Structure formats: structure tokens, C-alpha cells
């Protein structure tokens, strides 16, 4: 009935298909497209989303239920489920805390709530949702394929496979338990988790699709994930390279550069990925919504642009200002802490450097504190700008130092099982955040005198935990003698006159949703992000290539959403082909390309 899909992804025979990758790489789109293609081939397919940022509804224009598979209109044999781990985590929190509300003191209840609001609780809750579908044949009876648009992380799987993780709960419970705490309350049987982990590792039952952008850093991360999962015996892996720039149809330098960048990244493909079967999916002109668009995706069409010439005439007017305007406002205060935060890969480090270089270039004393692992900012900007001092924090070194400190102190009396447990706890994402933030706290205190620009910030969850445990308080007592003017670091972070939180995102659906979640998390800690920066915008770089111009146009929806619903201030940063180095290239991020049009905004 439909043309044969050309992607080898469609030859997958396993019952389960998992799509994994960073937010915004197109997991949901590919999972949806794969599910549609399998259903078109006559299989009964269940599509499952457990991604908090999932937009299955949006993709299929249908409300999708959380309990009963919803039939997708227009695709025979396709059903979808939308599991929300945030909601599962919320339900769990309510179940634990509900009975003691009003019985235990209010402050105690609040502290408990915070403990159960971390990313770990959500992740475990998400896995809990998977297990029923993976381990219980009844739950998916009648479906030939079950397609998931997310996959559990190595950290979660390792925790689950540690026998010690369970004995803590199931046996005497004398020695305290672990990160698995949240799991205990989810009341699932150990057998069920084991069955789920086994199903994942069974290559005849499960295929894992690593989704990546065809870029160096993204591929490096996909390679790490691949190795981590292979160690857990999840070896039936494939790679899907999403968003490849097709051969440009005109001589737009942006398009040519993009093409070159993709080619060079693929030429240097990491070893771990080389052996995997690969599918290449070209950059699409529009966001994928609706069944026809999904079908088209896997037909691997060259490009869906029909009339190239027209679209270039319609480069969208940009409704927001460039980063330069934001720096003007930051500079007014004469000093302060500027924290550039966001999910990994959105460009925090580069933007922090651009802001610092500009502030220093205007004659302000600036301390740029960066986690840039390559330290290339150090070498390229150093000495170029008079008022700029750069200090580096290496997250790996800090985390390693913190880990070994804990293993030496806490771990020294533990038996081998206990040590294994502790080591796994130390691999949780919180560990790195805490270790890095500890290293940052020195720099923070300088914000009262000059500008301190940092390319990372703690999440609200970490801040609340730090605050609750009193670590902060002790910290102040120690440093108050140095004549700092703020009461507590937490208060300093909450005061926009002293600290400006800049939330970085990309002009795409999932990254915007992820940034919104970070914002909510900061708000719980009483911190209001001062501005949003939307990075890597094609609209701001004025492409003439029709495909890129079409993409630029499709960015407007998310830019508008951020402006209207999320941010107090918004700045847009043009897309840069290569990571900008040197103060001149960094400064270019502060402006739009010449051929862009600013939309008049009436205030």
C-alpha cells in the first residue's frame, strides 16, 4: 500500500525497540516513524512514550491515554501509550508523604518532599513504568512490536542489577539503603525488575537504537552510551544519524559549512560506533507532525523542499533581540554573578565566554569560571582581553577527587558489596553536580565586587538539599569574616541584583521543554531565571539555502513560546558552524547576521 521504507531500521525483527539519545536529537520523531512503518507493514504495534518531554499528542494530533493503548487514527494496527514519569514520581511522593502530612512537622514534610523531587526519583519512576511492559507478557499481549521513545540509563540499570541494592530493602535493613530508595516505595517485585533487565539484554528480544546528531560531541556521547550499555550486555545496538545536511543546492556559506562539518565528524566516527548498523536521516525542513510527515521521513527522501527559490524570500522577521542587548542590561549593575545554565550540549560554555569577553571588552573587571574540558577558551581568549581573568574547573577532576574522598572516608570500612553499592551511588548525576558546585563556591563570593561569569549552575534540587542539610550555613559561618555582604549564598543566588541566572536552550521543542523544567526546579528554590538565551538559531544567522531557511521559519514557534510563556527577557544567538574561538569570533555571537530582519516589538 505504501512505498517500501528505505531505512534498514525497518528490518528490525525484535519485539522491543528502544530509542535513546540526548533531548532534542529526534528520538520521539524516529520512534513514531518506526512505529508507523512497522504498522504499515502489517504488524500490530504499541508505541510507548515515557519521556517527560514527549509530545506524542502533538505528533499524532490525538489525545493519548496513560493506561489504555490509544488507537492512532490513519494508521491501522498502531496504538500508543503516554506514560508520564513526572506524574508517576508525583504519585509516589503523594503516597509516601500523604499519610504523614499534618502528623509530622511542616518543615519535616517539606524536607521529605525535596528529597523525593530529584531527577533520580523521576528516572526510577520512569523505569518502573517500563518494567510492567517489558516483564509482564499480559501487559503487551497482542502486540508484535513495542516501540519505546526512551531507554533507561546505564546508571539505573547498574543500580538494579546490583544484588546488594535489594538486600538492603528485603533483608534486615540495618545498614541503610541506597539511591534505590525511591524504588522501594514503588512496590514492584524484584523478579519483575530482573525480567525487565533480562529482556533488555536479550538481543533476540530487544534492539536499542542510539540516536545522534552527526556532530563530533554528540557522536562522542553516543559512543559512551553505547559502551556503557554494551557492558551491561545490551549489545543489539544500531545507530541512527539524524539531521544530516544534504548536498546544498546553492552556495549559502552556512549550508556548505554545515555539510563539511557533518562530513568531517562522520569521517572521524568513534570506534565504538563504527561496527553498528547505521541509518542516515537527512535534515528535515519542518518539525515532524502528522502521519504523512512521519511516513515521508523513513522514505529517506532527499529533501522535502519542492521549490527552493521561494522560501529564501521569506526569512522570518525575528521577534527578539540579540545577546548584545542583554549584556547592556547586565553591565548596568557594574558587578554581579552571571550564571549560564542549561542541559548539556546547548552551548553554555561558549555563551558564558561571549558574555565575559564583551563585558571585559567594555572595561569591566570580569572573572570567567569555566568547566570547558578542552580549555580551548583558555588558550584562545587568554591575553587578548585586558580585564578578563579565566579560571578553570575540570568537572572530571573535581568529581574524581570527590569520589575518591568519599571512598576513602565512607567506604573504608565497608565490605565489597557495600563498596560496590557506594561506588554506584557515586556515579549518579548528582555527584558531579555537587562536586563541581563545591569547586565553584569560591568564585561565587567574588560577585560582590566584579563580574563573575560561570558556565554552569546548580539545579534547584541541589540547592534545596544543600540548604536543608545546613552545609550552606556552615559555609557562611566560615566565610562571613571575610567581609562579604550577603547573608547566605542561597540568598545571594535568589537576589537578581546580585545573581542573574541565564537559562540556555535551543529553538526546538524538547530542549525548550527541558529548559522549562530547569526553570520550575529553580523556582522551587526561590530563584527566578533572569533571562532565557535561545542558542544556535538559524533564523538569527540568515541562511539563504532553502532547506535551512525553512528550518529557520519553523524555529519561530518555539522562540515565540519562550517569549510569551517562559521568559522575562529573551535573547537569540545565531548558529555558529564551528565552535567560535578568540574574542572576535565570540563577539559575533552577540549580533544577528546582516541579512536578518528584526520584527518591531511594541512594548
Amino acid at each position, binding site marked *: 500500500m505504501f512505498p517500501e521504507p528505505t531505512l534498514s531500521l525497518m528490518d528490525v525483527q525484535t519485539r522491543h525497540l528502544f530509542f535513546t539519545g540526548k533531548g532534542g536529537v529526534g528520538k520521539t520523531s524516529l520512534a513514531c516513524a518506526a512505529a508507523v512503518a512497522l504498522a504499515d507493514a502489517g504488524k500490530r504495534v504499541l508505541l510507548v512514550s515515557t519521556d517527560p518531554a514527549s509530545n506524542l499528542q502533538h505528533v499524532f494530533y490525538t489525545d493519548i491515554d496513560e493506561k489504555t493503548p490509544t488507537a492512532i487514527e490513519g494508521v491501522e494496527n498502531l496504538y500508543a501509550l503516554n506514560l508520564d514519569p513526572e506524574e508517576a514520581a508525583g504519585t509516589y511522593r503523594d503516597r509516601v508523604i500523604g499519610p*504523614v502530612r499534618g502528623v509530622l512537622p511542616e518543615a519535616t514534610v517539606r524536607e521529605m518532599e525535596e528529597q523525593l523531587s*530529584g531527577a533520580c526519583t523521576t528516572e526510577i519512576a520512569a523505569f518502573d513504568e517500563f518494567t510492567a511492559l517489558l516483564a509482564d507478557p499480559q501487559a503487551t499481549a497482542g502486540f508484535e512490536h513495542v516501540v519505546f521513545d526512551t531507554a533507561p540509563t546505564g546508571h539505573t540499570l547498574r543500580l538494579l542489577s546490583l544484588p546488594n541494592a535489594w538486600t538492603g530493602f528485603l533483608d534486615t535493613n540495618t*545498614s541503610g539503603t541506597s*539511591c534505590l530508595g525511591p524504588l522501594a516505595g514503588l512496590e514492584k517485585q524484584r523478579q519483575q525488575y530482573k525480567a525487565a533487565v533480562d529482556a533488555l539484554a536479550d538481543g533476540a528480544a530487544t534492539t536499542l537504537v542510539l540516536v545522534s546528531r552527526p556532530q563530533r560531541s554528540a557522536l562522542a556521547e553516543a559512543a559512551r552510551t553505547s559502551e556503557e550499555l554494551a557492558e551491561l550486555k545490551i549489545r543489539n545496538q544500531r545507530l541512527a544519524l539524524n539531521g544530516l545536511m544534504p548536498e546544498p543546492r546553492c552556495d549559502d556559506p552556512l549550508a556548505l559549512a554545515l555539510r563539511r562539518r557533518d562530513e568531517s565528524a562522520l569521517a572521524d566516527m568513534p570506534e565504538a560506533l563504527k561496527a553498528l548498523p547505521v541509518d542516515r536521516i537527512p535534515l528535515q525542513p519542518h518539525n515532524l507532525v502528522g502521519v504523512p510527515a512521519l511516513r515521508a521521513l523513513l522514505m529517506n527522501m532527499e529533501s522535502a523542499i519542492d521549490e527552493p527559490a521561494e522560501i529564501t524570500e521569506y526569512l522570518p522577521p525575528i521577534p527578539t533581540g540579540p545577546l548584545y542587548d542583554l549584556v547592556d542590561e547586565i553591565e548596568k549593575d557594574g558587578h554581579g554573578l552571571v550564571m549560564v545554565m542549561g542541559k548539556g550540549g546547548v552551548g553554555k560554555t561558549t555563551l558564558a565566554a561571549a558574555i565575559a569577553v564583551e563585558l571585559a571588552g567594555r572595561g569591566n573587571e570580569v572573572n570567567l569560571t569555566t568547566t570547558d574540558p578542552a580549555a580551548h577558551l583558555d588558550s584562545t581568549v587568554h591575553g587578548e582581553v585586558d580585564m578578563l581573568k579565566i579560571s578553570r574547573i575540570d568537572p572530571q577532576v573535581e568529581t574524581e577527587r570527590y569520589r575518591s574522598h568519599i571512598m576513602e572516608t565512607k567506604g573504608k570500612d565497608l565490605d565489597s558489596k557495600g563498596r560496590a553499592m557506594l561506588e554506584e551511588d557515586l556515579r549518579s548525576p*548528582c555527584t558531579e553536580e555537587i562536586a563541581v558546585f563545591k569547586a565553584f563556591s569560591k568564585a561565587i563570593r567574588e560577585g560582590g565586587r566584579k563580574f563573575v561569569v560561570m558556565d554552569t549552575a546548580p539545579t534547584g534540587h541541589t540547592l534545596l538539599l544543600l540548604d536543608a542539610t545546613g552545609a550552606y550555613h556552615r559555609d557562611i559561618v566560615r566565610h562571613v569574616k571575610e567581609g562579604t555582604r550577603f547573608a547566605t549564598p542561597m540568598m545571594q543566588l535568589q537576589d537578581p541584583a546580585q545573581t542573574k541566572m541565564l537559562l540556555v536552550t535551543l529553538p526546538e521543542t524538547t530542549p525548550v521543554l527541558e529548559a522549562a523544567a530547569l526553570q520550575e526546579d529553580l523556582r522551587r528554590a526561590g530563584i527566578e531565571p533572569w533571562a532565557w538565551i535561545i542558542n544556535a538559531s538559524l533564523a538569527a544567522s540568515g541562511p539563504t539555502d532553502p532547506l535551512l531557511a525553512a528550518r529557520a521559519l519553523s524555529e519561530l514557534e518555539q522562540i515565540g513560546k519562550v517569549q510569551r510563556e517562559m521568559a522575562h527577557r529573551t535573547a537569540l544567538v545565531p548558529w555558529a558552524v564551528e565552535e567560535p574561538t578568540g574574542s572576535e569570533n565570540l563577539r559575533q555571537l552577540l549580533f544577528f547576521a546582516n541579512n536578518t530582519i528584526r520584527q518591531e516589538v511594541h512594548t
Partner: protein
Amino acid sequence: MKLEVFDPPMCCSSGVCEPDVDPALTQFAADLEGLNRRGVEVCRYNLAHEPMAFARNTTVRDELQADEGCLPLVLLNGKIVSKCAYPSGEFLASVIAEETEHVS
């Protein structure tokens, strides 16, 4: 002989998720294991996971109402023997010895 420990809420009870790791925690866990081997019944509750254990125990509930900072609380045969910090192994041994004498 029953020893009950009421821990403050900890996202992971190894405490490593938290900024300050209390070295006393590990030693304390080891001490409890030792006591358990010598026949003392040991029960440990984490506020983040088993709040009902806190709410049901009137001694613990009253102490929390009076002093929110009282955790960790250690109860021996239902009576508070230590609060606000993890006691040492010697301390535990001595209160258990006392209690044994008292009971006999």
C-alpha cells in the same frame, strides 16, 4: 533488646548524594551490624521512605514536634537514648549494658 534508628530523610542513605558526607554514618552502620550479630534487634527507618514509622511512634512524633532538628534519633526499647547525631559504638554498647542490667 530492640534498637530503633530514625534517620533524617536521605535520598540515598549512603548520604553520598548530599554535599556533606557524615563519616560517622558508615561507622554507625558497621556498629549496628555488630550489635545485630550479638542478638540486638535493630530496625532502621529513613524519613524519606518510611515516614509512617515516624508518625506511628508517639515518642518520635512528639520529639519531632518539639525539635525538628532531633534526627537522627536512636531509641532503645522505646526510649530515646540519642538525638541530633549518630552515637559512637562505645556509647551504644554502654547504654545497652545499662539496659541489660536494668532489665535483669
